């Protein structure tokens, strides 16, 4: 089972000294059925005056912190060691309409719905970054002919986005609307994730946004994937009673063992790796560095 070392550095530099700084980081990976977190650590430099870790509404790990002494910069560094347990998605899945119909049924009084079921209901609704967008729905429909098994259809949608959109860093910003991404046919991972989510939710399916990382240098013989030098984003689709299955529209297929999960939510807004409010100062700059290394098998064999 492959293990990965993740180092993620965020370095803010402020135009003037900041006396008061409040922040929230979602930089510590969560455990998932396919991922065990062996070590994880978040460091602040300078250190925080107050800091607390908790889980958010979706079970993601959040660090809340404040700095109350003057500082000219802030480095937020997350280091983690995770182990991936990759299971292939099932070959067969029910037709997508059946899943959509199942998700639209009222929750009966007899069966007590689980947390996943409630989350799935939430992930069918439009959200701030994934508004109801007819163009996105129309785009997705081509992958969803009647009766097509759900996972096959989602894989096809991911492949089409990969083939028909240009991956172009800094062509878009966080708030670039989906309509523009669709019109220009370019963007970055979060745009493609939002696009896929808008289409899937428009069809009545439940899909969530996943933030995480990609292995920087893949094993020999495998292609280097787009988005490997930064944090990455993809989606997961819900299959009732079976759970969530990850697909990466940026790279056109199911997420593989090099996809390491940080957090999930309805869209980017729920899982932004770093948010902050500072008082004073003026401009600021941010440098981000991400390294994801696969540890040699022998290093942890036995």
């Amino acid at each position, binding site marked *: 089972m492959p293990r990965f070392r993740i180092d993620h550095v965020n370095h803010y530099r402020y135009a003037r000294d900041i006396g008061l700084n409040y922040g929230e980081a979602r930089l510590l990976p969560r455990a998932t059925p396919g991922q065990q977190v062996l070590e994880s650590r978040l460091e602040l430099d300078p250190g925080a005056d107050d800091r607390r870790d908790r889980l958010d509404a979706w079970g993601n790990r959040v660090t809340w912190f404040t700095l*109350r002494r003057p500082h000219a910069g802030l480095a937020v560094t997350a280091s983690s060691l995770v182990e991936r347990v990759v299971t292939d998605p099932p070959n067969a899945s029910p037709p997508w309409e059946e899943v959509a119909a199942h998700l639209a049924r009222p929750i009966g009084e007899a069966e007590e719905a689980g947390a996943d079921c409630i989350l799935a209901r939430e992930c069918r*609704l439009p959200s701030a970054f994934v508004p109801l967008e007819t163009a996105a729905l129309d785009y997705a429909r081509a992958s969803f002919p009647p009766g097509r098994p759900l996972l096959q259809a989602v894989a096809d949608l991911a492949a089409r986005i990969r083939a028909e959109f240009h991956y172009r860093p800094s062509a878009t910003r966080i708030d670039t609307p989906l309509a523009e991404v669709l019109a220009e046919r370019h963007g*970055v*991972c979060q745009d493609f994730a939002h696009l896929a989510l808008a289409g899937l939710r428009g069809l009545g399916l439940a899909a969530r946004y996943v933030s995480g990382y990609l292995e920087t240098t893949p094993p020999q013989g495998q292609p280097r994937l787009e988005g490997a030098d930064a944090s990455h984003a993809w989606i997961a689709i819900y299959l009732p009673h079976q759970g969530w299955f990850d697909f990466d529209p940026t790279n056109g297929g199911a997420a593989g063992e090099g996809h390491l999960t940080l957090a999930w939510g309805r869209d980017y807004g729920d899982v*932004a*790796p770093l948010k902050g409010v500072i*008082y004073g*100062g003026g401009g600021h700059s941010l440098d981000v560095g991400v390294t994801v290394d696969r540890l040699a098998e022998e290093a942890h064999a036995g």
Partner: protein
Amino acid sequence: MTSTQTTLFPDTPDYHALADAWDEMWDAEAGVRPHWRELVTGLSTLSARDWSARNQRIKRLLRENGVTYHVYDDPRGYTRTWELDPVPLVLDAGEWAAIEAGLEQRARLLDRVLRDLYGPQHLLRRGLLPPELVLGHAGFLRPLLGALPAHRRRLIFYAADLARGPDGRLWVLADRTQSPSGAGYALENRSVMARTFPELLESNRVVRLNAWLDAVQASLNSLAEAAREIPQVVVLTPGPANETYFEHAYLAARLGYSLAQGDDLTVKDGRVWLKSVQGLKPVDVILRRVDEDWCDPLELRADSRLGTAGLVEAVRRGQVALANPLGSGLLENPALMPFLPALAEALLGEDLLLPTAATWWCGQDKEREHVLANLSRLVLKPINRGVASETVFGGDLDRKQLAAWKDRIRARPHLYVGQQPLVLSTVPALHGGRLTPHRASLRTFLVARADADGYAALPGGLTRCASGGKLSGQRGALNKDTWIAPARLPQKGPSPTPHRRESGLLTSRAADNLFWAGRYLERAEAVARLLRAVLDGLWEEETTPGLGPVLEALMGLMGYPPGECGCAERPDLAACVRELTTRPDQPGNLAHSVRALLACAYGTREYWSVAIWRLLDRVERVERDWGPRAAGRSRSGAGRERTDLWLGRLIDALAGLAGLASETLSREAAFRFFDLGRRIERGQTLALLLARTLESRLAGEAERESLSLALQSADSLVTFRRRYRSEPFLAGVLDLLLWDTDSPRSLIYQLRTARRHLQELTASGQRGRAERLLFSAEERLHASEAMVEDLIVDAGERQRLTVILRELGDLLASASDAVTHAWFTHVQEQHVLLAAAGEG
């Protein structure tokens, strides 16, 4: 349409009740309803003149008490006076008891729903509430999930809008839980009515309201987590620009709490602190009047400038309690309404007592089809509140609009409900001198009891009515007091313990505003006095020779560089006056100073007594009336007599305000900051005026004239004459205006008084920078006294004294800066950082 009628009192035309609605007062068969008879009888005894006088009294009391409701796009700015109809809505005490029980039950039910949805969510898991109804509502604040302890009551304030249908039944139209407003207005309505119709309240045995604020205070105190003898409670307001700011200030003043804006608070060590002039003070409870999603730019709306970063975390840590709590807006979702009967059954094991307007949530198939099929006969409401989400009346829509709305519903059905419109009952209200039926609704207010499980209802509420068919929003609506009568038990008099607590902390922002209120008040008065003195001289055929120094001092105060006023050369003196008095955008201009004074006062209104507010209202009216008159082109515009009269009125109003403020500013520290501002400003003005006088090197008649004007503008001419019984002479004038420790107009008096305030404000006994500056100014002024001991001032001494006066002016300016630095809010610019996430 058949109409029925009654004569309410002899001199007014008949009242015609409408046929399609229930009338609160008039029963078509039995005439005046029994619980209205006492009131109707009482009103019938009023003559037309009496009636008009009482109505005028209501208007005057509301204006003088500063009861305002701010409309955001109102070009008039801060003040729009609340309109109160003289006829109350009377509800029978027996009926009210049933309503109260129903409201109380509804509050308990909504509290249980709130606790569940932010906790275990059994309601969603068991299918009692569709998840989309909750998860798709903007009021579901995810950062608060799990933050409300499920074992404690969380819904503290609850308000419900009620209305009566044609069959006489009362229905709940809407639940208000986010940050219900209106209770303060309801209380103020009653206090105005009690002063206008005391005999009617007595004879009707109207249930009193005063116990309710005690319940609010007890409830808020009980929320404090920390064991503190007197918990620190603050009222969190978006500030003076908010539409219901009057109410925020009113509640703060009545309850003895500090009024705070988001940046008056800071989160440190996981708890909330108030930035007060005594340093950071821990806050236990927040009466929240900022909409919930604006309360924390870190975890809620990032674009908010009204919140406090870290507030959500302080809530999660249980270090502060908010009333209402963050997240309670979820309960305002009208889609909840059809589910309430089943929820009452499941959560309370009770039948829901109050009927709710029939409501269909479009997130359900059958209900959606019903709404789509009947849209033209329904009211369509979005489940989320907001500017872009107005209520739509299906009957108002044409075919094309209906189709467009249907498409919108089909696209996002879970965001809409259809509601059966209710033909609201009517109540008599004064309209154009006649009583006519107005459609009415009643907002009722409840607060969680501190010592028991239930809720205490305000016995009455805020009745709003309009003469049109619909009651839409706040605009154009008339307000009414609501009488529950007759009271069963003999009532106690007004509660003997005053609500005000003297320990309420003075926020740095309030101190800043009070300080500047003092400075602007003094500046406005000084400019008005100087202007009057100058104009007196200028309007004469031949310009008075001694005018120069006063004119220069005036221009200096008004921000013109020396020698650049050009006013005396202007052929049109009226235009010149207009220029100096009507430009609120120019610092130093009289209009600017007066308006800045009013803005500072408005921003600290919880500190001002009703009497002071009356004077502020007068100042405002005097200032406001002037603009259009001064602009008149004719001689009657800013002509001599009119200008003089106006300046006199303004000076009187300002002087009255200054005098009364000194006597009645409610808290000691508040008065000190206010008076400190006045003393520093007056000191600066005096130093400037006397320096200009000394510089002018006038002699003989011109000198006497200039000294007389200086005395006049320092309001000391009478004192001088009484003391010296002579024409003004330089040494005497200097003695009186500089060194006379007994004259409240002298410079030494300003310095000493200001320094004494600073001494009292500095708790530790340490001498702050401002105090040191004032001390050295005082010493320097003393030293200069020796120069004119023999009452002869030669040229060299004049020169030295001029330099000293300039230095004193500078020292005062530095002292003002030092005060600002030491005490007032240093609100720093807030930036929100969002790291670019998935660049990949």
